[in-house]
């Protein structure tokens, strides 16, 4: 069980309240909300025409078009609806490293995004995962549910190996509604970081990637003759860490980050990378804004 953290104070929560999530695409929602959804409905703004089929609301028939074309054509209107936000939080063993741990940092990010989503009347789902989905906070709506979110985040247990592909596949096949999928992870996944994101793309989710790294990931303070043990799968490897090797590692890590960023860029996914010793408030207020996540 990960230690309980004090996520936000009231001052910080008030600041977050004025921020809203900018979604690059429109999604359908079950309730009217403060953002446009893909679903055509009873809104005021005209969106499109389509052929009338039995069962459609005949109040939206375009009678003028019928007179001209002698066909029943239905007028479609955009409708402002709520946005489903799926907060995928990596709770594998590798997230427990760093100071503060990547997991704690990720929980704060998730909590902040949840709060903002709830404030904007979006439906927020929190899905911790590692080798599989480890529970789910069912859709919450409204600012008053934030404390349930906090409590849920606090109770998430860490451990296990990362398998995003399996976790996302399982979850997405059970949940048909598309939405904003926020993936908070260090992306140390032996099957590759792409596999999980590919699944989310396949299910047409709008994806925002929050890549969290610890200082040890970026610049490991290792030296000499070591047996490196992987915290997730206990695979060990003998290594003599020299400055040269460290330089190679850093280059590899940079390449890893670049690959993730390139992937996100290629598929127009939101991407932001941070390290755990970066001040959290600045991340939320500035880095997210720089990443065009918040407006």
């Amino acid at each position: 069980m990960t230690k309980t953290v004090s996520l936000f104070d009231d001052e910080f929560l008030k600041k977050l309240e004025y921020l809203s999530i900018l979604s690059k695409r429109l999604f359908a929602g079950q309730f009217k909300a403060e953002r446009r959804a893909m679903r055509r409905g009873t809104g005021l703004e005209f969106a499109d025409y389509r052929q009338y089929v039995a069962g459609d609301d005949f109040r939206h028939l375009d009678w003028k078009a019928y007179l001209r074309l002698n066909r029943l054509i239905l007028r479609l209107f955009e409708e402002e609806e709520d946005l489903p936000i799926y907060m995928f939080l990596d709770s594998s063993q590798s997230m427990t490293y760093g100071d503060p741990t990547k997991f704690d940092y990720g929980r704060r990010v998730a909590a902040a995004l949840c709060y903002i989503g709830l404030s904007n009347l979006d439906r927020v789902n929190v899905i911790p995962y590692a080798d599989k989905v480890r529970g789910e906070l069912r859709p919450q709506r409204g600012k008053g549910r934030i404390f349930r979110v906090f409590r849920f985040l606090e109770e998430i247990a860490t451990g296990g190996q990362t398998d995003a592909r399996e976790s996302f596949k399982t979850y997405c096949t059970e949940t048909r509604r598309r939405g904003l999928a926020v993936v908070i992870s260090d992306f140390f996944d032996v099957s590759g970081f792409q596999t999980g994101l590919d699944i989310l793309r396949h299910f047409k989710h709008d994806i925002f990637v929050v890549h969290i790294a610890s200082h040890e990931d970026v610049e490991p303070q290792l030296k000499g003759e070591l047996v490196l043990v992987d915290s997730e799968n206990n695979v060990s490897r003998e290594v003599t860490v020299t400055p040269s090797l460290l330089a190679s590692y850093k280059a590899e890590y940079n390449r890893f980050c670049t690959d993730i960023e390139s992937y996100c860029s290629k598929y127009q996914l939101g991407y932001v990378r941070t390290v755990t010793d970066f001040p959290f408030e600045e991340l939320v207020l500035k880095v997210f804004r720089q990443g065009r996540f918040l407006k």
Partner: protein
Amino acid sequence: MRFLALSGLQAAILAVVTAGVIVALYFLKLRHRRMVVASSLLWGRVLDERQAQSLWEKLRRVISIALAVLIGLLIAMALGRPEIHRLTGGGERTLLVLDASPTMLARTSDGKTRWQNAVTAALRIVNSSAPSSEFRVADTTGRVDAAPTSDRRQIREAIEKMKPMAGLPRFPEPDIETAHVRFITDGIAPLTVPKGTIRESVYEEADNVGITAFEIRSTPSSALGYEAYVEVHNYSKAPRETRLIVAGAGGQRIERTLNLKAGGEFGESFDLSKFEGGGVRAIIQGPGDALALDDEAFAYLPVARQTKTLLVTKGSPYLETLLKLDSLVDVTTIKPEQYQPDPGFDAYIFDGFAPLDAPARPSLLIGEVPPTNWLPRPMGTAQNPKFASWAETHPAMRYVSLHDVVLQRAVRLDPSNLTVLAESEDHAPLILASDMPGTPRWILLSFSLANSDFPIHSGFPVFIDNALAWLSREPLALRRQPGLVTVPIENAEIKALNGDVVEAHPRESGTIFQADGPGLYVATHENVRQYVAVNLGNSQYSNVNGGSSRKDLPETTAAGWLQQELWFYMVVVAAVLLTLEWITYHRGVTL
């Protein structure tokens, strides 16, 4: 390659053990520390990539262990003092002998002495030889014969410890491992050198006038009279004018100007009756003299005073008359029954009497004395013995003739541990002397004056005077030569003329000390005191010419490329490798 400090087997074992230990330690070192990381995903990629790409990575460990073994072997092998002839040269043993005869102190035209030139030559030989070459350094006096070593510091110390001094020269015997014998000499000392000896001469012709003899001796014709005999020799190739000065302790001086032709000599006795007792010094002064050691000489003139003598006799007209007439003797005569030991006397004369206990002063005993525990046991009587032989060189018997002395009777005595000064034809001791260290001297005549005609012979007063002189008068100085001086007094304290105590060492029945040059010393132990005059006084040493300039040696022996022993370079290389390893390790180039 060979090892000077190890056998081949030992070197091999050392190499194997060192390499084994280092390899073992190396693998012990490779017991890696366990470190849990968040993910080894990227580490795995890096390592796979490096392992696949870099030959250096593959060789790194092998090179590292090879380097460690190399450093260890260099250090370990350096302990064995390896030697490669091609690199370091010979490594053979050389017996390096310096002629330490006094003639080596002759000054040469460059202002240095032959000895200084010899030392310079010796050091040059040592320095130009192969680093591993061993030298056994010895001199011809036998005083220095250092153990063979290649340690240059020890060799230099041994050379610098040497000093020329008088004495019987002898050439040290080369041992079986000696490959070369080098002899640095002026070629004057008569030495037999081993075959194959390479000589280096430091000889150079020089002018020298020296005192070859200086002696104070008593004059038989004069009471308490002494004379000084001085002999001066010119060994130069040209005539020399030299000033001779004989100076006494009381400021008395005798001066002479000597004109000596080439090879000429001067010898003369000087009357010292006007001199006060004490040290007497002879000096010669002249320009361009090469050897200072023989330009001065010392002797001791005993203090002239009468001997206070107690004569204990029932009556002996000859003896009493003689002692009364002897100006050297202040005699007091008493009867035997009046005898009491009295420390105020210098000597006793017991005529037909002997005290039960040995007297505390020297004594002359005459006649058939009663048996005591401190005198030899009587073993019968010899009738009409004749003097067959006597010790003419003994101070008590000098100038004493016993040829026609007639004896009626004499007591046969046991001469064990005694000096027989005179004996009969059948070896019956007639005159005995005791000179035991720590006890007063005594002389015993085994016949009475009444039973012989000895008192009317001319030798009688001479004998009495000699005997009293030997018993109680201050002795003349012992004559010695510079170098190690032996004094026949055990545990004696040695002082120079200026009062400085000289370092001395006890030897069997005597004391030994070092005298580097001419001087007058006094040796004392309890009541015993003896002057020692140390003079070169030898024509063999003063004749500084007649040597040879023969030089039958190469200037230097063939040395290798390296000036130091190989171990030195091995340690340097090991240190350099260690430094490189340290630097590269900290820069991450090596493991």
